[in-house]
C-alpha cells in the first residue's frame, strides 16, 4: 500500500515537474522604430512568429516552451548593450540580434559569457570564429552566427556578375564601380573587400559617395554620380533611404546599374519607389519568395497566420529570412536538448556545427542550405541574385495585388557560388 502511494506520488511529482518545465529564455533585439525599422519590422515579426509557432505546434524545445524576451532598441547600439547586460544576468541561452554596430560591439561580451548570438547583421567580421584571419579590427567571434551570405560575399558575387554583364554588353574600356552608403558600420562593412575585388576584376574604383540612413533629398549625390560616370553603384543602406536615392537619380537622369544589399530592396521598397526601382539587382537570402511553390511554403504560411490569422498579409523577403534565422537557432537548441541534454550556450553553439548543408526541417525550398565549422562561420557562399521589375504605377493597390497583377516582380538573374577562399575570411 505504501509503495503504491509512494509510486503514485513519485509519478505525480514527475508529471507536475514536466508540466511546469522551466521555459528557455532567449533574447531578441529588434529595430521597430529606428533608422532601419523599415526592414527591421518584418524581420522581427518573422522571428517572433516562428518562436510562437514552434511553442504551439512542436511543443517548444524538448518539451520546454521558449520565452522570447523581445526588446526594441531603436538601432542605437548603447541601448542594445545595456539591454544585453540585463539579459546576461537573466541567463538567456541565446540571442537573436539585429544591427551591425551593436552586434560587433557585443562580440567580446558574448564570447566572454558564452552565449550564441544569431544576428541579422551579415558583417564579414563576424565570420572569423577563431580570430585567425589577421584582419585589422577583427576579433575572434566563436559565438556569432548568421543566416545568409555576408555583405562582403554578396557584394563579391554581384561584382562578378557585373564583370560578366559588362563583357556581355560589349562595352569598351574598364567599367567604373562606386560604393554608396552612410558612414556607419553596416554600409561600411563590405566596402574594403568590395573595392579590393573590384580592382582585381578590372573595375575603376571611384571615391565612395555618402548618403544618410534616413530618407531625404539626394539630388546632389546623384549629380555627382552622373558626373563621375559610374557604371555600377552599390547601395549600402536599407530600403528606406535607397528609395530616396533611386527616385532622385531617376529624376536627374542617371544611367547606372544599381547593386543592392540584402536589406536594400524588397517588395515594399519596389512599391514605394515605383519605376525608379526597376532593374536593381540584389541578393535574396531565401530560396523562394512569398507565394512561390515550395515544399516548405505551407509551414511558412502557418507561421504567418500567427500574427495574421486572416492570411491576407503579403510577407516580404525579410519575413522569410527572419523565419530561417529563427529556425537555425531553434534547431541548434534542439540539438543541445537532444537525449535530455542541458540547453546551455556552448551546447547550442555545438548544435550549429552538427549539420552540413543545413536546411531546417519542414522548410525545404524556403531556406538555403548553411554549413558552419568551428573555424569558419561563413554559412552560405552561394548568392542568389534577383532583379526587381516594376512595370507601371505602383501607388494604387497593395503589395500583394501588385505582385499578383504582375506590375511588380522579382526575376531571378543568376546564382553565383563563391570559392571558400581563406584570405576572404573575416572581411
Amino acid at each position, binding site marked *: 500500500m505504501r509503495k503504491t502511494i509512494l509510486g503514485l506520488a513519485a509519478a505525480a511529482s514527475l508529471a507536475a515537474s514536466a508540466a511546469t518545465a522551466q521555459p528557455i529564455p532567449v533574447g531578441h533585439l529588434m529595430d521597430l522604430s529606428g533608422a532601419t525599422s*523599415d526592414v527591421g519590422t518584418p524581420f522581427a515579426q518573422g522571428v517572433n512568429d516562428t518562436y510562437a509557432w514552434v511553442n504551439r505546434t512542436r511543443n517548444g524545445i524538448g518539451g520546454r516552451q521558449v520565452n522570447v524576451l523581445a526588446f526594441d532598441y531603436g538601432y542605437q547600439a548603447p541601448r542594445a548593450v545595456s539591454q544585453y547586460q540585463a539579459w546576461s544576468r537573466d541567463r538567456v541561452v541565446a540571442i537573436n540580434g539585429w544591427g551591425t554596430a551593436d552586434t560587433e560591439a557585443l562580440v567580446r561580451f558574448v564570447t566572454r559569457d558564452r552565449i550564441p548570438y544569431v544576428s541579422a547583421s551579415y558583417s564579414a567580421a563576424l565570420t572569423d570564429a577563431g580570430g585567425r584571419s589577421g584582419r585589422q579590427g577583427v576579433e575572434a567571434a566563436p559565438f556569432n552566427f548568421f543566416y545568409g551570405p555576408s555583405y562582403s560575399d554578396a557584394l563579391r558575387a554581384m561584382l562578378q556578375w557585373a564583370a560578366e554583364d559588362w563583357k556581355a554588353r560589349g562595352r569598351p574600356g574598364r567599367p567604373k564601380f562606386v560604393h554608396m552608403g552612410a558612414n556607419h558600420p553596416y554600409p561600411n562593412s563590405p566596402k574594403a573587400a568590395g573595392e579590393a575585388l573590384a580592382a582585381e576584376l578590372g573595375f575603376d574604383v571611384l*571615391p565612395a*559617395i555618402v548618403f544618410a540612413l534616413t*530618407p531625404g533629398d539626394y539630388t546632389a549625390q546623384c*549629380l555627382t554620380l552622373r*558626373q563621375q560616370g559610374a557604371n555600377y553603384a552599390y547601395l549600402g543602406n536599407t530600403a*528606406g533611404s535607397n528609395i530616396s536615392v533611386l*527616385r532622385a537619380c531617376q529624376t536627374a537622369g542617371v544611367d547606372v546599374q544599381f547593386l543592392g544589399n540584402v536589406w536594400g530592396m524588397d517588395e515594399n521598397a519596389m512599391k514605394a519607389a515605383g519605376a525608379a526601382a526597376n532593374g536593381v539587382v540584389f541578393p535574396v537570402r531565401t530560396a523562394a519568395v512569398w507565394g512561390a511553390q515550395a515544399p516548405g511554403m505551407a509551414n511558412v504560411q502557418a507561421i504567418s497566420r500567427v500574427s495574421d490569422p486572416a492570411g491576407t498579409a503579403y510577407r516580404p523577403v525579410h519575413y522569410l529570412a527572419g523565419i530561417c534565422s529563427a529556425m537555425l537557432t531553434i534547431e541548434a537548441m534542439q540539438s543541445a536538448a537532444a537525449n535530455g541534454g542541458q540547453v546551455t550556450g556552448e551546447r547550442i553553439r555545438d548544435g550549429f556545427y552538427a549539420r552540413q548543408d543545413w536546411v531546417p526541417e519542414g522548410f525545404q525550398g524556403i531556406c538555403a542550405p548553411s554549413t558552419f565549422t568551428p573555424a569558419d562561420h561563413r554559412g552560405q557562399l552561394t548568392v542568389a541574385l534577383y532583379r526587381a521589375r516594376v512595370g507601371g504605377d505602383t*501607388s494604387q493597390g497593395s503589395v500583394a495585388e501588385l505582385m499578383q497583377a504582375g506590375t511588380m516582380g522579382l526575376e531571378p538573374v543568376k546564382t553565383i557560388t563563391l570559392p571558400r577562399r581563406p584570405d576572404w575570411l573575416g572581411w
Partner: protein
Amino acid sequence: MEWALLFQLTVNGLIVGALYGVVAMSFVLIYKASQVVNFAQGEFLLVGAWVCWWMLTEWQLPFWAGFLVTLAFMTLFGIVLQVVVLRPLIGEPVISVIMATIGLGIFFQALMKWMFGVFAKPFPPIFTTERVSVLGLEVQTVYLLSLGISLVIMLGFAWFFTASKHGLAMRATAFDQQVAQSLGVSVPRVFAMSWAISAVVSAVAGVVVGVVNGVSSALSFYGIKVFPAVILGGLDSVVGAVLGGLIVGLLENWAQWLDAGWLNWGNMYAIAPFYALVLILLIKPYGLFGTKNIERI
C-alpha cells in the same frame, strides 16, 4: 574643374534653397510677431505632408481638394497650438518657451510615427509630366511648382505686411506690444494668426517635399536647417530669411561639389551649413543682416 557639375549643383541649390526660404519665412513670422523661437517648425511640415497624403490615399480626394483641406486643417492646428500651449507661457523666460516648442516637436514627431508608421510613403502621381528640364538640369515638376508657390507667398507676404490691416497690426505688435495694444490691436489674436499663417506656409513646403521624396519623419530635418538660414539672413526680416534659405541651399550643394571633387569626407553636405553658422556668429553675433539690440539700462 567640373564646371558642368558645379552649375547643375548651383541650380539644384537654388531650387532646394527656395524651399528652405519658405520654411525660414514661416519661422521668422512667428519670431517677429510673438518672440517665440519655434523649434517645432519641421514638425509643421511633417504634419502638413502626412495630412495631405492621408487625404489623397485614404479619402481618395483629388490633389487640389486634398491640398485645400490640408491648408484649412493647418490653420486650425496653428491656432490651437498657440492658444493651448503658447499663450500660458507668455512672459516666461525664453528658455521655457524654447523647451515648450521642443516638447511640441518631440510629441508630434512621435505621434506621426505612431499614426502613420516608419516607412516612407510616396504620394500618388499628381502631374502628367513628371520632369521638366531647367537650364540643363532635370527637375521634378513639383519643384517648379514650389518655386512658383514660394514667389507667390513672398509677394503675398509683401502685400500683407504693407497694405493690409491685419499685416500692419502684426508689424505693430512686433515693434512694440504695449503701444499696439493701446491702439486697439488684439495682441492674442495677432499671435494666433501668426502661428496659423506659419503653419499653413510650412505645410505647403511639406507637401512639396513629400511629393518629391515621399513622406517620412526625415521631413523634420528641414526644421533644423532653418537655423543656419535665419542666422544668415537675420531674424528680423522675412526677406532676409528667404535669402538665408537660398544661401543655405547653395552652400550645401557647393560643399558637396568640393567634397566630391577633392575632400572626399562624405559628410560636407550635411554639416557645412552649421560650420558657416558658427563662423558667422563668431564674427557677427547678430547674424549677417540682423539688427543689433540697443539696450536700455
